[in-house]
Every structure is written in structure tokens, then in C-alpha cells.
């Protein structure tokens, strides 16, 4: 009965949403804080739940049995099961990459594993990255994953909230973008290889809590990150660059004090744009499909605080305009992904999270 009521309410909502150029359909609900989506070649979808389950959606239906054999993880605060992406050669090797938090409440960190998906079970699991220093806060894990065109893996790691100054030192993983090979080894052309005191897997630094990572069709690496009170940032990442946190920021501390009085400094990169007040950006994708002709080439940013998806119209590496979408849902949106067939999928962030599909209102 409760389920029927939810479907009915969503249908009412669709009336409003359909007034525009799209409609929103419920694909699955009852997901516990869903975090990320991966599209399998056979049309199935995998959805991570922050509470520690990996779920499969097959023929548009959420399978009751979760994917088995996930490793132990730390679930608490913002930590748990996070991102999932497929190996670029998934069709050949069935390998996928998953970020999660590991450890305990008093000593936890961000970890990435690779595993093969055989039927409904993970097999051949390898730990390919664990952030070097553990922390005693259950916040700011980062945890987004993306492959570069050369098949090296990028991993975002947050600065752990209480450890923000460490984002400026290269001897730890807090507040860093990491680049490793698929087997966990370090690519020989990483920018800090050979620098004394620097960890060789670091690709860029000075980040806060990056929860959006995208390698766009033209090879540009985009990263967005949560600011504190204001100062959410969209950055274009170049290897070796310092993105400034917490030496420069457009945000204030939650206490009302300065994190820093400075918004720029020599040797530190400026964001492409910053969102102040905060929208709390989370998922990220580029739309390259053919279903929404007007959206082609646009970037989409899911937001938690604004309860929306921002459509960014790009021009020459800059944001020409922004449109705020899907506020009619009145839901924190954790993830936005475009499927190969051109539809947009959203994950809402709640204990009873939903997977929603956005399609044109008129065929």
C-alpha cells in the first residue's frame, strides 16, 4: 500500500515535470542512500548503496538479492560504499572498480578495490588503493572514480574535515586527486614522481571534498568539490596543479569564521566557477546522447543542498549559462548519469532513495 501511494504521488509529480521538455519516471525505490550507478553492457544497472550493498537492476526491476562477496567496509557518517565504474574493457574482463571507506570510526580512510562481476558475485577482489593516513572523522572521503583515455584510474580523496591543512602537503592523500594504473601500480609520468617527500600517486592537490569527477569527450578532466559554507567549486584539472584549499576559498567555515581571508594566491588555481551559497554538488556527467538534442555537450551536476541538477552550458572551457532542473522532485540528488541510449538517470539521497529516469515528454 505504501509503495502504491509513493507511485501515485510520483505520478502526480510527473504531471508538473512533464510540462517541460522532459518527464521523470520511477525505475526503482527502496534504495538505502544510493550513491552511484554503473550501466552494464547487457542493459542492467548496478547501484551502490552507501549502507554497504551493491544492487542490480535488471529489466527495469530492482533485484531483491544484492551482489555478493563485497569486502568488509566502514559504514558511518558519509562513509560506506561509494562509487562504481566499469573497466574500459569490461566486456572482455568483467572487471569493475569500487570505492568504499574502510577501517573504524576512530581510524578510517578511502579505499578502492577492483573485482570481477561473475553472475551475482564479486570475485578476484584486489585492493588497488588505500588512502595512506587514517582519520578519526566519518566525513569527506571523496571517493569518485574516472578513467583517463590512457586507461589510468583517477580517484578523489577528501581532506577528512578536521585535516584540511594536509590538503596542501604532498606527503599524504588528504584532499588529493590520485592517479594509478588499473592494478594499483603508479604510472611513470605522474607529476610528483621523484619529488622528495611527495607521494608519487598524487595527480593534483588542494582539494576539499571532491564528489564529482568527469573526463569529458574531449579529454578534459573536470572535478567539482564541496566548499564549506559557500565556495563549492568546479575545476579543470591539470596534473601537478594546486587548487588552493584551504589557503584560498570563496567559502566560510561553518562556525562563521574565515577558513582563509584569501580567494586567490600565486601558484594556486582559480575555479572555473564557484557556487556561493553552497549547492553541495555530488554526481557529475556529460551528456553526449541524442535523445535530448538541446542538452548535447552540456555538463550535469547533481546537488544535495539545492535539491536539483544543474545543467551547465559550456563554451571554450567556461560556463556560458546554467539551468536549475528537477527542483520539483524536492529531493537531495546524489548522482546524475547519462546512459548510452541517451536517457538521464538520477539517484535521490535518502534512506528510501529512488532511481529515476529522465526522458523526453514527447517522443
Amino acid at each position: 500500500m505504501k509503495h502504491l501511494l509513493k507511485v501515485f504521488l510520483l505520478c502526480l509529480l510527473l504531471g508538473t515535470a512533464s510540462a517541460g521538455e522532459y518527464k521523470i519516471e520511477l525505475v526503482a525505490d527502496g534504495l538505502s542512500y544510493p550513491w552511484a550507478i554503473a550501466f552494464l553492457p547487457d542493459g542492467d544497472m548496478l547501484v551502490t548503496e552507501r549502507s554497504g550493498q551493491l544492487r542490480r537492476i535488471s529489466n527495469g526491476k530492482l533485484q531483491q538479492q544484492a551482489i555478493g562477496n563485497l569486502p568488509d567496509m566502514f559504514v558511518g557518517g558519509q562513509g560506506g560504499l561509494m562509487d562504481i565504474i566499469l573497466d574500459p574493457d569490461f566486456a572482455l574482463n568483467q572487471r569493475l572498480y569500487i570505492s568504499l571507506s574502510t577501517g573504524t570510526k576512530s581510524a578510517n580512510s578511502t579505499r578502492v578495490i577492483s573485482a570481477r562481476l561473475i553472475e551475482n558475485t564479486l570475485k578476484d577482489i584486489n585492493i588497488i588503493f588505500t588512502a595512506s593516513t587514517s582519520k578519526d572523522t566519518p566525513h569527506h572521503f571523496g571517493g569518485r572514480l574516472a578513467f583517463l583515455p590512457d586507461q589510468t584510474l583517477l580517484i578523489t580523496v577528501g581532506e577528512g574535515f578536521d585535516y584540511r591543512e594536509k590538503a596542501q602537503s604532498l606527503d599524504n592523500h588528504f584532499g588529493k586527486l590520485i592517479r594509478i594504473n588499473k592494478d594499483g601500480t603508479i604510472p611513470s609520468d605522474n607529476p610528483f614522481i621523484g619529488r622528495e617527500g611527495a607521494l608519487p600517486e598524487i595527480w593534483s592537490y588542494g582539494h576539499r571534498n571532491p564528489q564529482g569527477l568527469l573526463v569529458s569527450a574531449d579529454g578534459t578532466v573536470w572535478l567539482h568539490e564541496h566548499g564549506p559554507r559557500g565556495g563549492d567549486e568546479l575545476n579543470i584539472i591539470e596534473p601537478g596543479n594546486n587548487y588552493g584549499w584551504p589557503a584560498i576559498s570563496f567559502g566560510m567555515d561553518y562556525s562563521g569564521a574565515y577558513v582563509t581571508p584569501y580567494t586567490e594566491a600565486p601558484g594556486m588555481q582559480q575555479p572555473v566557477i564557484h557556487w556561493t551559497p553552497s549547492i553541495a554538488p555530488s554526481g557529475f556527467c556529460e551528456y553526449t546522447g541524442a535523445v535530448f538534442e538541446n542538452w548535447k555537450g552540456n555538463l550535469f551536476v547533481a546537488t544535495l543542498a539545492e535539491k536539483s541538477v544543474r545543467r551547465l552550458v559550456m563554451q571554450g572551457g567556461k560556463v556560458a549559462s546554467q539551468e536549475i532542473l528537477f527542483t520539483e522532485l524536492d529531493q537531495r540528488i546524489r548522482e546524475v548519469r547519462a546512459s548510452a541510449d541517451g536517457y538521464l538517470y538520477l539517484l535521490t539521497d535518502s534512506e528510501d532513495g529512488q532511481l529515476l529516469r529522465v526522458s523526453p515528454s514527447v517522443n
Partner: protein
Amino acid sequence: MKFIPPFMHFMFAVLTTYLLASMVGTQLVLADILSFGLRVSLRDRLLATVHDLVGLMPALFLLITGAFLVAFVVAALCRRFLGGKQDWWYLAAGFTSLPAALMLIKYFMGATLFAAARTSFGMLLIALCGLAGGWVYTRLSQNRGV
């Protein structure tokens, strides 16, 4: 100070700790900025200090008020039932109240909301600011003959 009502003694103590803790917090944050290789001018330092005195007012002032309220009631009860000098109880209450409150917040929220208290050194300085508040309270109360 007989003309000052007891409630005002308490508020003077809170205000003293607030002013000191806010200023200490700003200087610790600016010390971090210096460590990143940025130059912090005297003007920037003064402006940041004033900014934080205003910006921290709602959160930190309330936190100190709550922490002192609990700590001073406990100090009064301890003095009553355990004996000893009033001054020592209130000094101890001032010294321990803010670290206790900040640790409780961290336990429940998983984060230290007042950035200065993230290190042991910062926490010690904040405790000393609380000690100063406790001292102000004992001075004012003694002069009134409480």
C-alpha cells in the same frame, strides 16, 4: 562590583572567553595560512580578527554560554558537597568546559566545528581562554562577597 548582579558576572565570564577564543582561533588559522607560503599583512590580520569576532558570535558565544552554564553549576555543586575553595572549582570549570563541549560535539557529529580546537595545542589554548573566563567569574563573585 557589588552593583553587578550575579547573572552579569556569568555574562562577563562568557564574553571574556569569547573574545579570547575568537582571537586565538583567528591567529591559529592565519598561522596555517602562513605555513602554506602566503604572506599575511598586519591589515589582513586585523580585518580577519574583526571578521571572526562578528562571524563567530552566534555559534561560539552560544557554545561558551552553554558550556559555562553546565560547568559552573557542576562547580557550585562540587563546592557544596565536596568542599574546597570556590575559586579552584570555577577555574577548573572554566578550563575544562570548552574542551569537554567540543569533544562531545566531535563524538556526536564526527567533526570539530571550531577549527582552532583540532590540534592538542589549539585545544589547550581554548582551555586557557575558558580558564580566563572562570577567573573573571571568581573575581567578580568574590568582590560581591558571594
